[in-house]
């Protein structure tokens, strides 16, 4: 039998991996992928609790998170393309027009 702790700790490790990625990488698309990784680790927690509690609400949450992630992917990648078109870069260190 696999206790729920294992799933929760795995999810925590994956979430932190995503956090480290966001903090260390400078490529906008990779940062975007790290955010997807974080969303997914949260999904794992939801599904794990749903299975161990015998309650389907967790899986509903996952469903809606996936819808949000899909919307985010469409808009986020559109932003990246617009950014690249205007500045020929996706490195977020070079996108400092709002920084004085």
């Amino acid at each position, binding site marked *: *039998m*696999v*206790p*729920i*702790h*294992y*799933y929760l*700790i*795995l999810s*925590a*490790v*994956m979430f*932190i*991996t*995503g*956090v*480290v*990625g966001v*903090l*260390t*990488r*400078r*490529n906008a*698309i*990779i940062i975007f*992928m790290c955010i*997807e*990784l974080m969303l*997914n680790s949260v*999904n*794992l927690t939801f*599904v*794990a609790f*749903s*299975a*161990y*509690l*015998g309650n*389907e609400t967790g*899986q*509903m949450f996952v*469903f*809606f998170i*996936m*819808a*949000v*992630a*899909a*919307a985010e*992917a*469409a*808009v986020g*990648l*559109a932003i*990246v*393309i*617009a950014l690249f*078109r205007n500045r020929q870069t*996706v*490195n977020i260190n070079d996108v400092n027009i709002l920084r004085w």
Partner: protein
Amino acid sequence: MSSELIVFLILAAVGVLSGILMITRPNPVNSALFLILNFMALAGLYITLHAQFVAIIQILVYAGAIMVLVLFVIMLLNLEDEEPLREQMSKRHYGSLLVALLALVLIVQVIGWNSGGTLETMREQSPHALRIGTVEHIGSVLFTEHVYPFELTSILLLAAIVGAIVMAKKRFP
């Protein structure tokens, strides 16, 4: 060790390793591939949790649609490799690593490896787990109890479509 634990450990190892490889590869295409591998491992973990609908949707939506789109954009922009991570390690990087590690320790401490509390009662999956993961059950709950959020999601997706087109469109002269 039971067979379930072995399956879990293999999938967990694949998930964690692919995650770490994803954030350390300089090439964005390699990163995307490792993220896809990570999603596959997650789909396997959902199967071990008897959430078959979520597992198949994970592959269909994440691996099949979102990541294809990401890969498409990476190839369209023809991005070059970032400089390898170990050459650009700075104080900021060590700082962020430290913060992340602290956060991990904190979360694990809260979960507690084997401490008592509410989690202690959840050593095994609920007997309902087999039933609630099926498409029939998810469908009936989604279209009765959660029908308003579901309809709102469609508005969200419409807004996303419009937003994406407006932003990615070429400027008119």
